[in-house]
């Protein structure tokens, strides 16, 4: 090992992707160093080239479609960029390992986790048989999997998302690498689990003394974990330096925008006197579990189990909780998009038991915006067709010119050009698509909108723009929101009152200001600590 030099040294790296109508320069002139035992964070929005940079270190890009016109990547003094495939394979998984974002697809569903860890050990260390088994147990214990011995025979689907990510980390650590590349390892996880994984990575780094290249779009994580930070935008590093300095005195305008991107808390005040828009009492959504030959119902999955909420006009009710807590199901049930039990009262009218046709006249007033900006717009319809659809259903007699006018008004209101209506969803970025979804809901001039994690798939800067947009619309149109999210910072920015859900039940509720200041239950406290300070809670309070 070159003793004093950096562990990894990237100089003037460029990455070009060739496709059938030209070339895209994904990364250009990127230079940075990682010293042994150090954590360097690559920060930037999606498409800024941070993952591409990290993948080129291990030559994992789709060559020959990708190429490097210039640059050098030196690891312990050895040039990696032009190393032949059989030699780079010895580096991968041995000296440099990688943990990916998606724990659902990174593990092979057909092999037990024991087999998958043993494979790594055999490939790189030549360890087999009982020795490999012992080492696997040791690794799983190290990453905090309880009952590691018993877990060896488990298949990936039997583990939770957080546990899967722990297994991925165990596999990455199997050969005690000098450098761990973590490519958004916590983005797909719940806040509570995210905090645990971050703590784990920090602990392991302290114990094993490895360097980490941490890729993320979340500045909170960077603050928590990284010593140095490189801010990337459009394929270039616009600013790099000591993490504390960069955050305290950002030099580049983009970095400043990024640091300021945290949505400002300015929620609509709670309105205890305003009329109730939506109210439900002891709402239940139970999915039957059927077993055996006669498909008898042996039990129920209680997605929503006796929830009572009321949303008043002009206010935003934030619904928070981990994934699987039933918050999305609650939103869908309130709009009667899934069957439920218990009264739902909308503007004084009971909705339960109405037929599809009878429901239609209420649908105009209650709309929904979904989480996934890529899945919620039909790829085969133009933006005009998408936004117009509700008008066809609810105002079929409106003349075409008037209809077009309304579509344009809705698009303008969400901050899109009127010309966008001739284009198709795939031409838009995630944030723009989310605006289109919002326009589709707004064109009917509803009074109540369920927002199902509308910001969680978006980059930080776009997120805070979206929050501002939602807030502006609420003020202008006196809208009532049910805001579902696991991202507490966004909820804090928008919600007048908050409901905390866990296992289908309401754990705690109250005005947002009070709740955020003084959470009453231990669960809420753990949730808040994880979200705002990335602190993991003690055993047993939150899911593993």
């Amino acid at each position, binding site marked *: 090992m070159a003793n004093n030099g950096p562990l990894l040294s990237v100089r003037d790296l460029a990455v070009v992707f060739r*496709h*059938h109508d030209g070339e895209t320069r994904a990364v250009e002139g990127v230079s940075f160093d990682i010293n042994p035992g150090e954590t360097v964070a690559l920060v930037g929005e999606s498409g800024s080239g941070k993952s591409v940079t990290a993948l080129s270190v291990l030559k994992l890009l789709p060559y020959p479609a990708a190429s490097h016109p210039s640059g050098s990547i030196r690891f312990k003094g050895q040039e990696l960029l032009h190393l032949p495939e059989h030699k780079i394979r010895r580096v991968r998984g041995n000296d440099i390992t990688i943990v990916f974002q998606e724990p659902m697809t990174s593990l092979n569903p057909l092999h037990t986790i024991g087999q998958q860890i043993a494979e790594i050990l055999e490939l790189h260390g030549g360890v087999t048989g009982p020795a490999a088994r012992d080492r696997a147990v040791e690794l799983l214990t190290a990453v905090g999997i309880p009952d590691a011995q018993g877990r060896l025979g488990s298949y990936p689907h039997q583990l939770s998302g957080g546990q899967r990510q722990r297994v991925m980390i165990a596999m990455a650590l199997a050969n005690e690498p000098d450098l761990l590349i973590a490519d958004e390892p916590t983005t797909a996880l719940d806040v509570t689990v995210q905090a645990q994984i971050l703590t784990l990575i920090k602990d392991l780094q302290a114990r094993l003394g490895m360097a980490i290249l941490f890729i993320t779009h979340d500045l909170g994580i960077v603050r928590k974990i990284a010593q140095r930070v490189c801010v990337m935008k459009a394929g270039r590093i616009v600013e790099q330096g000591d993490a504390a300095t960069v955050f305290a005195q950002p030099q580049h305008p983009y970095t400043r925008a990024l640091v300021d991107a945290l949505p400002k808390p300015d929620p609509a005040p709670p309105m205890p006197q305003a009329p109730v828009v939506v109210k439900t009492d002891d709402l239940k959504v139970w999915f039957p579990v059927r077993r055996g030959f006669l498909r008898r119902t042996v039990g129920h999955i209680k997605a929503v189990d006796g929830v009572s909420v009321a949303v008043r006009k002009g206010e935003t009710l934030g619904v928070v909780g981990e994934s699987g807590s039933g918050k999305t199901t609650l939103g869908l049930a309130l*709009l009667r998009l899934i069957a439920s039990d218990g009264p739902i009262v909308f503007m004084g009218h009971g909705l339960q038991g109405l037929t599809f046709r009878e429901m239609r006249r209420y*649908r105009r007033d209650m*709309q929904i915006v*979904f989480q996934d900006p890529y899945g*919620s717009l*039909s790829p085969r319809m133009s933006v005009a067709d998408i936004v117009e*659809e509700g008008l066809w*259903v609810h105002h079929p007699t409106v003349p075409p010119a008037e209809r077009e006018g309304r579509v344009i008004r809705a698009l303008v209101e969400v901050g899109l050009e009127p010309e966008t209506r001739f284009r198709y969803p795939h031409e838009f970025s995630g944030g723009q698509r989310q605006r289109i979804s919002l326009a589709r809901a707004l064109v009917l001039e509803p009074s109540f909108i369920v927002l199902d994690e509308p910001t969680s798939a978006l980059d930080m800067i776009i997120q805070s723009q979206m929050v501002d947009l939602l807030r502006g619309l609420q003020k202008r149109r006196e809208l009532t929101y049910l805001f579902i999210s696991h991202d507490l910072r966004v909820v804090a920015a928008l919600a007048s009152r908050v409901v905390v859900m866990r296992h289908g039940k309401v754990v705690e509720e109250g005005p947002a200001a009070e709740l955020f200041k003084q959470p009453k239950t231990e669960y809420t406290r753990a949730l808040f600590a994880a979200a705002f300070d990335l602190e993991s809670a003690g055993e047993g309070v939150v899911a593993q």
Partner: protein
Amino acid sequence: MDATTRTSAETAVVATPRPRVAGIKLSALNARRWQNFKANRRGYWSFILFMLLFVISLFAEFIANDKPFLVEYDGRYYFPALVTYPETTFGGEFETAADYRDPYVQKLITEKGGSMLWPPIRYSYDTHNLDLPTPAPSPPTWLLTEAQCQPVAERKGVKGCAGLEWNWLGTDDQGRDVLARLIYGFRISVLFGLTLTVVSSLVGVAAGAVQGYFGGWTDLLFQRFIEIWTSIPSLYLLLIISSVLVPGFFVLLAILLLFSWVSLVGLVRAEFLRGRNFEYIQAARALGVGNLTIIFRHLLPNAMVATMTFLPFILSSSVMTLTALDFLGFGLPPGSPSLGELLSQGKANVQAPWLGLTGFFAVAIMLSLLIFIGEAVRDAFDPRKTFR
């Protein structure tokens, strides 16, 4: 609020119209698909060649016919290819339709200073060549020796083989021109295949859509029904039915339809099962859009991709089925031009290889073209094909 309304009113006036390409509204997606289709050179040229052959065969009456398409007689014009005229029109004796190949009728017309414009091949699929130089099946005229042509040529008053009305691909065992039968046979095969493909896709897509969209008991019962239905040995049933009913074009179509519609059901059902959980379907439900609209506007376009990919292959298998039935003698009624019948004649007359070879190459080339087109269509609809 006021400001927004005003700006949007202004922008509405200057709003550009929906972009169009060559008069046809081609979405970016379809334009890309067309590019991908063209990028598969083999499939693209197969498509052009096949369409050329098909369009030409649609005008078979003007290419191979035993009636001229224009007759000038006594200063007036007649169109025998389209209208049937009695012999008396041209001064003949009988009220029956004029046989323009009959030297007597030809003489009547030319005597009055009239003339006839013949198609390039003067035989229709059912014209028996009565002036064969050799016993039927007679080889292609260009394979005959002058000695063989001599008697016929003398009788017709022309010089040698070159003066005869040529049978480019010889005749079958009833003295009918093979090329004429090939052209008509190709047309009927493709038309039959197309009709069967379209109708069975319509039925199959509808059935699959209902199953996939509604799911539950509808799906379960329908699936069991299809399993039982497909386990019926269809060939035997076809043989039995075609021996009871007189097998015409439409009867055959109906019989084959009974079994061919199931091929797409599973595919469309799976697409719908997948598609109905998409968030934009949920969004449409939240807008209060009805089931039928959701099926047609949102789900069907998705399912159509898979369906379109399959169509050329269904077309080729439909053509193959018809050919097979004709070959076995259970297909189109006797006398109809058909490739299967040509093949079976080739089998019965091994001493006349032009029958078997023509039939073989016609079927082989047609099916190969369809398969190549199918591959190109599959490429065109492949979403991963964008980044190569």
